[in-house]
């Protein structure tokens, strides 16, 4: 639970269909993932993964926003994170379904997959990297059709400086600070994200379906329609 004292952003509960739509919004990597990564057949198999509240509310809100003329944006670093997560998930899929999968740590047999083993798995399945990355490229190309990417050329250094300033003042990680700083640098204060840490940033409005973020905002009087 995020302490009330740390809640600085205003929060919009996107599960509420009556909430106002912003004119422009910047989407975080986690939302791009829910909307643009192919969770292959899982809905049909009875499993709605990622968590059902994510697969239900973010695409539905995205549809409303697109139909309502909201300018949907993202940050280049979010696209990079998105690409990395998709590749990592694909590698994990291959490793998990390989009957002859290698030990991830020869000194500690039986280790489960975690991001620290991504490079090990990538090297082991090097022959499959190209098709995986071609899939990621397709996913990115499709994603880029529906979002504008910030920052625009020539603003990177300024965005980085702003990110450092914002990060020092917050308790969130640097990637979040970069997202917020880039969005604000482009004159956009609205962020669409499932990451509760974003509500610790001053001067933004977080559009989310994350109950932790919504609960903390409600407790600190920061929940708006």
């Amino acid at each position, binding site marked *: 639970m995020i302490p009330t004292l740390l809640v600085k952003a205003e929060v919009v509960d996107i599960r509420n269909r009556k909430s106002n739509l912003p004119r422009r919004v910047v989407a975080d990597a986690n939302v791009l993932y*829910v909307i643009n990564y192919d969770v292959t057949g899982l809905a049909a198999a009875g499993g709605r993964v*990622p968590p059902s509240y994510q697969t239900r509310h973010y695409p539905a809100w995205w549809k409303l926003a697109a139909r309502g003329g909201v300018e949907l944006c993202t940050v280049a670093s979010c696209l990079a994170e998105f690409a990395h997560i998709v590749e990592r998930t694909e590698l994990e899929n291959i490793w998990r379904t390989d009957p002859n999968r290698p030990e991830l740590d020869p000194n500690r047999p039986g280790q489960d*997959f975690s991001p620290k083993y991504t490079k090990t798995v990538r090297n082991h399945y090097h022959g499959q990297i190209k098709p995986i990355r071609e899939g990621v490229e397709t*996913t990115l190309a499709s994603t880029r059709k529906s979002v504008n990417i910030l920052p625009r050329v020539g603003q990177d250094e300024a965005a980085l400086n702003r990110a450092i300033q914002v990060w020092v003042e917050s308790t969130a990680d640097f990637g979040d600070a970069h997202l917020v700083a880039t969005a604000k640098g482009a004159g956009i204060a609205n962020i669409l994200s499932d990451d509760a840490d974003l509500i610790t940033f001053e001067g933004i409005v977080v559009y989310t379906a994350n109950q932790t973020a919504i609960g903390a905002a409600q407790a600190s009087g920061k929940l708006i329609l």
Partner: protein
Amino acid sequence: MQTIRIIDEIGPVCVDPEDGSLLCQQSCTALSQGLDVLLDFSGVKTLTSSFLNAALGCLFASFSVDTLTQKLKYIGLDPTDEKLVRLVVTNAIRFYAATPEQQQAMAAATSRAFEY
């Protein structure tokens, strides 16, 4: 042959899995009657995996790859969306060819992506 115009059934923004499920049901009904199905995406502005997964992926649970290759066709896609459809179909084939244990493993990996 039954032609389904996505723009008429869903609209220009194809993002929501619930909309995808509706399309899946329509395709499923026609295919079950032995009809060929032509999905016409002309006029669709936004097409995402979350939609396509629910719209197309589910068909591979009920019909063989051979049946779908012969009876399910697509038109009105730009090159990017065409690649995306191919990717979703390839993944669906891979998913439904896997054992139940492997399917569970894939589901677990996908759901944990942002939990690390």
